[in-house]
């Protein structure tokens, strides 16, 4: 059996020491530790279902080795929630009917959050580009675009209010 290495990660705000073989992907690590909201759709970087934020930027966790992430902050869709409240992106996905089977949703929301971290007022084109690595077979993306626009608006309002 291969040796394991220990990597310190901050996952959804909690510091965790992860012991994993050196070739373990972040997707495998997260699911092994109960973060089942991170989905596997291809394990080849083709679908985006496994997307999480690493220091605020969306990455395909199936293509990222856990051992390379020492000290980094990981956020999954479950980590976006604000206590009992849904995050504005999550709430907008619910409100606009942007979720059907929901298997792509965690990845789509993380890709959208990554976009909004950089571009608070995205154009439709920005949204398309940011979500282009996330496949969704159910929705045709239309209601997803609507939800991202709405969440961007809510987040901007929150920003200007604070």
């Amino acid at each position, binding site marked *: 059996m291969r040796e394991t290495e220990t990597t310190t990660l901050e996952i959804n705000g909690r510091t965790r020491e992860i012991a994993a073989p050196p070739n373990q992907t972040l997707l495998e690590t997260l699911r092994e530790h109960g973060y*089942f*909201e991170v*989905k*596997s*759709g*291809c*394990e*080849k970087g*083709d*679908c985006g*279902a496994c997307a999480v934020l690493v220091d605020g930027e969306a990455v395909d966790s199936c293509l990222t080795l856990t051992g390379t992430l020492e000290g980094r902050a990981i956020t*999954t*869709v*479950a980590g976006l*929630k604000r206590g009992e409240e*849904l995050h504005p992106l*999550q*709430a907008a*996905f*619910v*409100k*606009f*009917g942007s*979720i*059907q*089977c*929901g*298997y*792509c*949703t*965690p990845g789509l*929301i993380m890709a959208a959050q990554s976009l909004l971290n950089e571009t608070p007022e995205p154009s*439709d084109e920005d*949204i*398309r*580009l940011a*979500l*282009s*690595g*996330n*496949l*969704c*077979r*159910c*929705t*045709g*993306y*239309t*209601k*997803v*675009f609507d939800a991202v626009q709405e969440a961007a608006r809510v987040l901007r309002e929150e920003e200007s209010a604070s």
Partner: protein
Amino acid sequence: MTETESWANVNLRQVGRPLARSDAPGKAAGRTRYAGDYTMPNMLHAKVLRSPEASARLRRIDVSKARALPGVACVLTAADLPDRKASTDIPGQTGKKKLATDQQVLVKERVRYHGEPLALVAAETQTIAERAAELIDFELEPLPGVYDPFEAMKPGAPIVTAPDNVVGQHKVRKGDIAKGFAEADEIIENTFRTQFIEHAFLEPEVGLAWVDENDVINIRVATQVIEHFRPIAEAVGVPHNKVRILGALVGGGFGGKEDVTVEIYLALLAQATGRPVRLAYTREDSMFGHGKRHPFVITHRTGFTNDGRITAVKVTITADSGAYVFLSPYVLLYATVAAPGPYRVDNVHVDAVAAATNNMFTSAFRGFGAAQACVAHEAQMDEAAKALGIDRMELRRRNFLRTGDKLVTGHPIESAVWSDECMIKAWEALGERTPDAGPVKVGRGVATYQQSYGRITWLHDTSEAWVGVEVDGSVVVRSGVTDIGAGQVSALGQIAAELLGVGLDDVTIYNSDSAVTPLAGTTTATRGLYMTGNAVRLAAEAIRGRFLARAAREFGVEPGEVDLAESKAFLVDRPDTSMAFKDLVALCASEGVHRSELVMFRAPFTGQIDPETGQGRVHPDYAYGAHAVEVAVDTETGEVTVLKSVGAHDVGQAINPDAVAGQIEGGAAMGQGYALSEELCYEEGRLTTPSFSEYLIPTAMDVPRYQSIILESRSGLGPFGAKGIGEPALTPVAPAIANAVADAIGVRVFDLPITPEKIVMALRRAEAAE
């Protein structure tokens, strides 16, 4: 009084509102557990070893090295299995004898398709299971195969399915075809080809099985059909009541999780090891692991008078069924019934055949044969309009079926046929025409369709549901229905909430567990809402009736004077006279008024159609609608951009308009992929496109903002006059796009997908001909 009239005046409060679906918050928050998210202590991980050849004889298989690998718990080959096969016929039917459509569980001797399972492994970790699979030593002797359905039906062709590779055949003989063509002023004949496509649900097949203390094999699995416990039990050799299927919310189905996938492998491994076993397909496994959409070759010969009336239609359909039968005969039947399109035709002749080959097997896929038929009949209408000099929509209008008209099978249509209304609305929604820009030409297309909802009537389809009200006034619905993403479960909640006068939040729904939820039948064939929606409606109505009677006594009035809404019982004429729903329920409970109901809803039951003429009843009812698109085609590169795309459908009654719109938009994207980019390529039966980097489904970059228009005739057989939208949303999309491309460039590509290469070649041929 017909159902149409009775529903027209019903005043709805919960049904018809775009409520947030009950399953959405859990999915948004990442709290929803899919079948692949369940684990158990002491669980093993499984792997399937697949054949790298499409047609071969298994000469030898040696698993000793794999078995010896530390951490391997079990390796199974055909030699270790009971001598049983897996039935691949439609599950859950009671109305007819099953077809002889069995499939070997693991290859015993003959390999019939690329990817056919040779062995199963269960090990302590996934990595060990994969390594063990690699250590299995086997020898395959390639055998001559057949990869084309026409070749498969020639004398001397290699036999894939005895006796002659023909696995399905249907005919329609209606009117006098010779007379019809003699009356025609113009005859249009074309041949269309459609391709193998993949469902590409985002969640690959996955399941977890364990044997419990009662020797029941429990399988938690991503499936559209919990009734598969029956064929699974038969395949492993236990009584039906010793297999339990537990569903979970499913990460997409589209027909691809309609057949058994991982279940039998899991059952066998759990039985053999006595431990829980998990099997998760990789994306590549998934490409090999379930049946695809049938490629069709359709030749359409249509006669028209000069004023655009159809005089005769002759259609021949040849479908590639691949290496096993699965649902091919039924898919072919749907195509046969849909072949002439939503048009009135007196003289019809259809010959349809499905043949076995050594390609991947084909089975259910949203649209189920009617989608392929639509590709042909809608292109024919546009070609005819061009030849006759009649507007494309006007030509359709002159031929549309109307309510009460007889279908090609001779059975009259009982519900509303709003093809024209839908077509007009979809077309108008395209708005102002986008101008051409140099070599980029803009075109528009429309397509209409006829798609059944509900199962074939001689399968004698039923659905059961249980509704109950707890003492505190909260509501429980139990139904075996699986939710594959369209909001099946939430819609049932809305129906119960409507009839009991409570909110959707007050309803909890338990679904898809074959041991504890009443069997609802399958989530397939656009039947979920029609069948199970009706079962829930009937159960909730029964309880409602008892509650109204009790409340009426309390108020000293007749039950007809009382209504339930906003968690209250109140007098219709004097809403101030009311009592809280929970107080009414408590009263009923204290007096032993029955607060629950189990109901079976039955679809119309018939015998089979006449095999020689195709006359008789095939489906309960049909949905009608239209899709319109505007595309831009770069005539230099052949690149197609979909600029606008609008679906307009008569859904009878939308239970949740947002969910209906979601189906229409999702269908628009899936149909766009079918038309323009998706194709599973097989070379001598070998799949060469096993990943999402080769098999291209539409991304966020490829789609316009889809528009959806919902029409409500309230004339359907579903609850409150609903029809269905799951399959109809997809069916007209690809033909509308094909028609728009032809409109843009003036020539037609007859084979899907319409790739840039095919467009450039078609333009070059047209240029050379000039």
